[in-house]
């Protein structure tokens, strides 16, 4: 009896709200600010721009001044091809950034470092502007002891492409360091060395992307210059600061307290940390800040499950790296120290949208027990309604049940 009545009265909504209709209407937030970064100046500028436009907003894009040629091309092409009154590109450095942050925006999308993200969010707080911040972190790659030579080859190639082949490691989702079982580490290092040669050639200077500027070059050099770190280099280690070049470098077990293992590397230096059992790598990752991505090259389903359920990161990718960037049905974004907010695909649209709930009611039914003056009978009816005990309500109304 109750079931029948509850179906009639659309049981999920308290009976006092019957009949009604509800829907979600997506609407634009308004005027958006997108602050982009220097390592993927096109991708990271245009992807959020697409989302903001698709959601119906007007947008200001501030590309990174550290990639001036791209910034300039973006400004020229966007102003030529897009509606200038609604979409603008403002070029400049920190002082322009500061001025922009003093304005009142309806949302700010920031990609970059945690330090600047704090400045952005603090400025946004003054106007209660919601923000999304895409940061980075130390993205680890667990490499299990693979047996098949095909698997070994593919894993190695994918790791190298995701490190040295992706803007020379200057990417938020680049593999920062590797975790491998001691007994497999020698094999892995051999493979990595061999494929560095075949993929980047004898003269890597010509095939690996360069470091963005002298500041970052000397930062990376300092990571290597620590004597206890330098001693662990097993491949590479050379650099040419004038040419902004750092050779793809492999290190095995640099000290865990050294800067190369505590700071996000953002460059072509690849530490390999060895563990006794591959499962130990999970604890290793758990004890560190949450990264934008965790990679694992393995065929061990138990290890995969354990990794996915016990660690937290923006995303988890098995047997590949970087490629999640183009998987548009998956949200792209961080957690904890790697940021918050997500985009790509429909998530970009959602990021710049306010999902407005709209409830419609009819004048047709109006329940007297919704309104004061309150008495025990009305209270009893409400209690029964909240227990979805409609039969009881009918009894009370008919005076057959005392409150």
């Amino acid at each position: 009896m109750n079931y029948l009545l509850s179906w009639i009265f659309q049981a999920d909504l308290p009976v006092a709200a019957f009949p009604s209709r509800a829907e979600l209407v997506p609407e634009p937030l308004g005027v958006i600010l997108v602050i982009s970064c220097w390592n993927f100046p096109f991708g990271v500028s245009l992807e959020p721009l697409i989302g903001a436009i698709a959601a119906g907003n007007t947008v200001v894009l501030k590309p990174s001044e550290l990639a001036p040629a791209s910034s300039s091309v973006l400004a020229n092409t966007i102003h030529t091809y897009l509606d200038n009154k609604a979409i603008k590109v403002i070029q400049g450095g920190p002082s322009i950034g500061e001025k922009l942050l003093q304005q009142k925006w309806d949302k700010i999308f920031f990609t970059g470092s945690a330090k600047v993200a704090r400045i952005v969010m603090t400025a946004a707080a003054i106007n209660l502007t919601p923000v999304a911040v895409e940061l980075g972190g130390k993205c680890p790659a667990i490499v299990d002891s693979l047996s098949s030579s095909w698997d070994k080859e593919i894993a190695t190639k994918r790791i190298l492409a995701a490190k040295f082949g992706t803007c020379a490691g200057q990417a938020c989702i680049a593999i920062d360091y590797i975790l491998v079982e001691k007994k497999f580490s020698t094999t892995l290092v051999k493979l990595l060395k061999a494929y560095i040669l075949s993929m980047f050639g004898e003269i890597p200077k010509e095939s690996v992307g360069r470091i963005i500027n002298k500041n970052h070059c000397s930062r990376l050099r300092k990571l290597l210059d620590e004597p206890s770190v330098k001693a662990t280099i097993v491949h590479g280690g050379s650099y040419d600061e004038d040419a902004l070049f750092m050779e793809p470098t492999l290190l095995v077990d640099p000290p865990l307290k050294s800067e190369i293992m505590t700071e996000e590397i953002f460059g072509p230096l690849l530490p390999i940390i060895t563990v006794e059992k591959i499962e130990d790598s999970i604890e290793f990752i758990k004890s560190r800040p949450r990264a934008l991505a965790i990679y694992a090259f393995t065929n061990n389903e138990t290890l995969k499950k354990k990794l996915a359920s016990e660690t937290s990161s923006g995303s988890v990718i098995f047997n590949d790296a970087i490629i999640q960037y183009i998987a548009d049905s998956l949200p792209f974004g961080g957690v904890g120290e790697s940021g918050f907010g997500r985009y790509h695909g429909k998530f970009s649209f959602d990021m710049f949208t306010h999902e407005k709930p709209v409830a419609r009611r009819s004048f047709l039914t109006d329940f007297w027990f919704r309104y004061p003056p309150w008495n025990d009978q009305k209270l009893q009816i409400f209690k029964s309604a909240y227990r979805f005990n409609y039969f009881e309500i009918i009894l009370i109304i008919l005076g057959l049940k005392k409150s």
Partner: protein
Amino acid sequence: MALDMEGMMKELRGTYASGKPKSYEWRVSQLRALLKIADHHEKEIAEALRCDLNKPDHESFVYEIASMKSSCQLALKQLKGWMKPEKVKTSLTTFPSSGEIVSEPLGVTLVISAWNFPFLLSLDPVIGAIAAGNAVVLKPSEIAPATSAVLSKLLGEYMDTSAVKVVEGAVPETTALLEQKWDKIFYTGNGKVGRIVLTAAAKHLTPVVLELGGKSPVVVDKNINLKVAVRRIIGGKWGCNNGQACVSPDYLITTKDNASQLVDALKSELEAFYGKDPLKSEDLSRIVNSNHFNRLKNLLDDEKVSGKIVHGGQRDKTNLKIAPTIMLDVPGDSLVMNEEIFGPLLPILTVYKVEDSIDLINAREKPLAAYLFTNDKRLKEQFIRNVSAGGLVVNDTILHLAEHSLPFGGVGESGMGAYHGKFSFDAFSHKKAVLQRSFAGDVPARYPPYTSGKLKFLKALLNGDLVGLIRALIGW
């Protein structure tokens, strides 16, 4: 008693790291404990609410206890489904692969509650935090001290205090809490403190939900069932904590030729609800404290509105009561039109055409809710399309809060983020993307050394250009 903030955070992080709050069983046990609190202590809770706000039992039951229970029951019923990973389709570009989105807890979270629905607004977000597997600290509002004390006592008795804590106190305690590093902060209150919370969160890059307020307008058209409309407006305003609610109808807009009918209908129904002397009615909450009483008194005494009061205006300072008051045609720059009223005063603005009300509303900050009473389909669509607010209701007020499938939250000045139903679970979750790739099906074109042939192939692949793909493969 000085609170050992560091020790508390250490304990919570330890409990969270142990994995206990992540388990389904733990979450269910805690949600059941919350239900027990509501079931076994209804009287105590209602008494505390009467003490803090003189809230009528009916309101305490409907708006606080029953709402909280309903939220809890929904979470218990649907939690398994909410926790299940969501499989997603992956495209040709990552073939072969499989993807899913996994919901995981954020970690250690902070819920700062408000004084007007001190029971519900404390526990509703806590339900979301627990359902999502987090550890949580609740800071109830000190402006509702009896309820704060009851919450502290009951949660201390029934909940797993190694993961769920209540910290009572005022500004110093809140400031100390905000200095800690949280994985999420959920704040309900006003815009001024909302900014303080957001600024503190920025230091740790903590994501935040802010449930604020605003001036929620009600547009009243002609040719409607005026009696029902007016009862719903009264029910949503004075019948809901005496106008002290974030989604309270703040002011009305109607056409000049409809105003007197509307005022008459309001007067008549107000008398039916609260009698001839509403200051004596037991069915109205009082004003929460003398600060707010004086604030409202100033709005009433503003010389810009002195001639505009058409009903009510009586006040009782001792008992902190103000009668339901209606003002007609107040100037746009009056005090009462320049802040969220949060009390029993109802200004009515009049326009020539009902469509003009939309521009009036859009000239102000986005409110938490906007209401429209009409039978005109075109006006409905215009309103829905053009008025931006946290949420909209046509032909009723506040009821959208009871619909769990609708997100409840603000936009612009009225807040950011949303909750209720599964949205509460989502608000306290991280949606982690998990992509499984195979070693088989490798695309050598991905790897250096890069050649123009590889570039052609990749372009074709990423553009979904099958012909181009074949051409690139056969080297054409």
